[in-house]
Every structure is written in C-alpha cells, then in structure tokens.
C-alpha cells in the first residue's frame, strides 16, 4: 500500500501544478476529440478512459488528470473509476503482453500450471512486467475461448491448448531470449 502510494505520488508531482500535457501530442488530441464527441458528459468517463488506454497502452496519471480537468469530473471519482475496472491499468504494460486466461474451462484444463511455469522460469507473477519493460504477464478472467482451453493471448493473438513449457519457450523467443 505504502509503496504504491509513493509511486503514485511521484507521478502526481511530476505532473502537478500548471504544467499542461503536451497538446501537440497527437494522443492527447485524440483523447480531446473523443471528449468533444461526448460533449464532455461525465457518463462518457469510461469511454474516454478506454481511449486513453488505447492511446498509451495504460492510464498515465498525466492523462488521467487531463481527463478529469477537461471533463470536470472530481479527481477522486476518476481515480475511483480507473481503479475499479480491471481492464484499466495505471502502470505501463510490457512491450509484449501475455494474458493467461484463468476462466473455468482453462482452470480445469491447467491454466494454473502455465502461470506457475512462467513464474518459475521467467520470475514473472501475473501483473508484473520485466524490468526492461519487454514482457508483461497478466491474467484474464475468461476470454470466452473455452473451447481452446487452456488459452493464452499473446500480443492480441489467441494461443490454444497451451502447454506450460512451450509457452515459456514462446515467450523467450518473443522477447529475444531475454529473461
């Protein structure tokens, strides 16, 4: 808790005060345009956060502040929403991302073994990213590909009937053998 707190604090200090986000950044332009489309109605908050995550791959605090300010939604509400939904991440994800489905079908067909193998071989627990940011590992509740269990989504590609050992090899290959 405390550690997380500190990290977020650092974010806020970096972006506090009057420092405007770089308006020239096309990503901000896209977000601003999306807000315009919804006339900055507060109910579009989740839609806009989706746009931010699309643009950055995660929700940078700067962008979250920007959204709150532009949409005139109280900061704590924006933060509350951003942290309520698991799809949103306040931390940058990896360059490559491996999402292990842990839905029921995948669970009974051995998803946990994949999680364990990755943790043992690559030292990555779900939610973690390698220090160099190359690989992030996440778990999903169910990606609706139960027929393919156990399934893993690697960089938006669904891998079916995954075997733990092979998965690790695939990941190693994807990040260039880096551990």
């Amino acid at each position: 808790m405390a550690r997380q707190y500190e990290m977020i604090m650092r974010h806020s200090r970096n972006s506090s005060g009057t420092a405007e986000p770089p308006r020239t950044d096309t990503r901000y332009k896209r977000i601003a345009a999306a807000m315009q489309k919804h006339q900055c109605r507060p109910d579009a908050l989740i839609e806009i956060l989706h746009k931010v995550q699309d643009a950055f791959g995660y929700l940078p605090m700067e962008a979250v502040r920007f959204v709150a300010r532009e949409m005139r939604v109280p900061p704590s509400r924006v933060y509350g929403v951003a942290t309520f939904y698991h799809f949103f991440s306040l931390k940058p994800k990896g360059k490559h991302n491996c999402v292990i489905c842990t839905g029921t079908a995948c669970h009974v067909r051995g998803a946990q073994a994949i999680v364990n193998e990755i943790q043992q071989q690559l030292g990555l627990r779900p939610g973690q990213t390698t220090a160099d940011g190359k690989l992030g590992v996440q778990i999903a509740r169910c990606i609706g590909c139960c027929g393919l269990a156990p399934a893993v989504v690697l960089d938006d590609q669904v891998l079916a009937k995954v075997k733990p050992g092979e998965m690790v090899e695939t990941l190693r290959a994807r990040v260039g053998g880096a551990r």
Partner: protein
Amino acid sequence: MNEIVSIQLDGNELKVELGRTILDVCREAGVDLPVMCYLEGLSVVGACRLCVVEIEGSPRLFPACTTPVAANQAIRTQTEKLKRYRRMIVELFFAERNHVCAVCVANNACELQDLARRVGMDHVRFPYLFPECGVDASHPHAVLDHNRCILCTRCVRVCDEVEGAHTWDVMGRGHASRVIADFNEPWGSSTTCTSCGKCVQVCPTGALWPKAASMGNLRKEPGKIGELVAKRKLNA
C-alpha cells in the same frame, strides 16, 4: 400525504404512511435496528446490511433502510437468524481491518464498538485479515486511518452531497477498496478539500478524527448532518 396502510411490525399492528422505509417506521415505533452506512441526511446505499429484516412470505431478507413499507406487510426485525447474521456482519467488520479498540482514539466513542456490544459479539470467529493499511496525517486538522475504516462511505457521501466538494471517493474494489482523496493523494495536498470537517463528524469509527482529539475526548456529531440538510430544505 401518502396513503395510510397497516403493517405488522414484530407482531404489533401499525398504521403507517406508504412510501416510507421500514427503517423510518421502526425508528418511529421505537424498534432498535442497527445501522452503519445509513445516516440521516445522506443518500441511502444499503451497504452494511445490518438493518436487514424478514418480511413474511418472502424467502429474502430486506434492508430496512431502502425497503419501503407495503400494505399488510408482516415485518420481523429481531428473529434469532437476524441476530445471528448481524453478529456475523459485525465480526466481518472487525476481522477486515485492524481494529484495536484498546488504543483507538474512538474508544468509548465508536459506533462499531457499540455495535459489537449490542449484537453480543464477544469475539471474532473469523481469522483476522491483518491487511496492511496506511495512516494519512497530512491534513493539518484531521487524520485518516485506513486501519479503522469500515467503508461505510458516509464521508464520501457527505463530502459530495452536503459539502459539494467530492474530495473523497473509493478506489479499487472488493476487500482491496480504500477511501481516497483526489487522485489517491495525501489528504493534506488535496485541491478539492474545503477542510469543512463534515467527513470527520460522520465517520462512525476512529478512521477519521480531528488531530486535536485524544482517546477520551473525541466527540462526533453525525446527527448534525441530518439537521443541516433538513434546515437547508426548509430554506430552499
């Protein structure tokens, strides 16, 4: 004035106005229902589930604070099952965070502590979770101690609905939920907080307390909010 109907409350026949909640009716009739999240003057969230009652003919339980009375309802508020469930809920509260009454500033001035006595909780059967919780003392006048927070959200609501600042909200979800100020920043650096102190007054436990207070002289007046809201309505 709404229609008057008759209901049975714990076996007693009562004439009540339609549209009122069971909790209202109970309070008027002197039936003592425990509540934690409910506070007069604030919106009703039905979150603590302490005020659940039985209504004859339904297998479900109903929170008295949100359920309106209906004609010919037979309501039971003190069955053995309800008492058992209430005690269990209080146990869950105590097991969830780190409540140490002995050293809490709200000792002897705590709604949760009182509740434990009222429901006869002599110990907590569930394993204590001992979560890691922080204390935020960055505000000049008050302290937020997550160890003692029961997530009743009275502070969140009073800040939004009565003060209009919406400094507080809840982040995360499930048992990882935490009350936050602004972007989960130290309360003292909040740009929205007006330091009105209402959140501290409504907090039922020692989670929010004035810095100047010590165990033994903490006095909270959550009832003031109801009065304030009522006065505002009169003036409006």
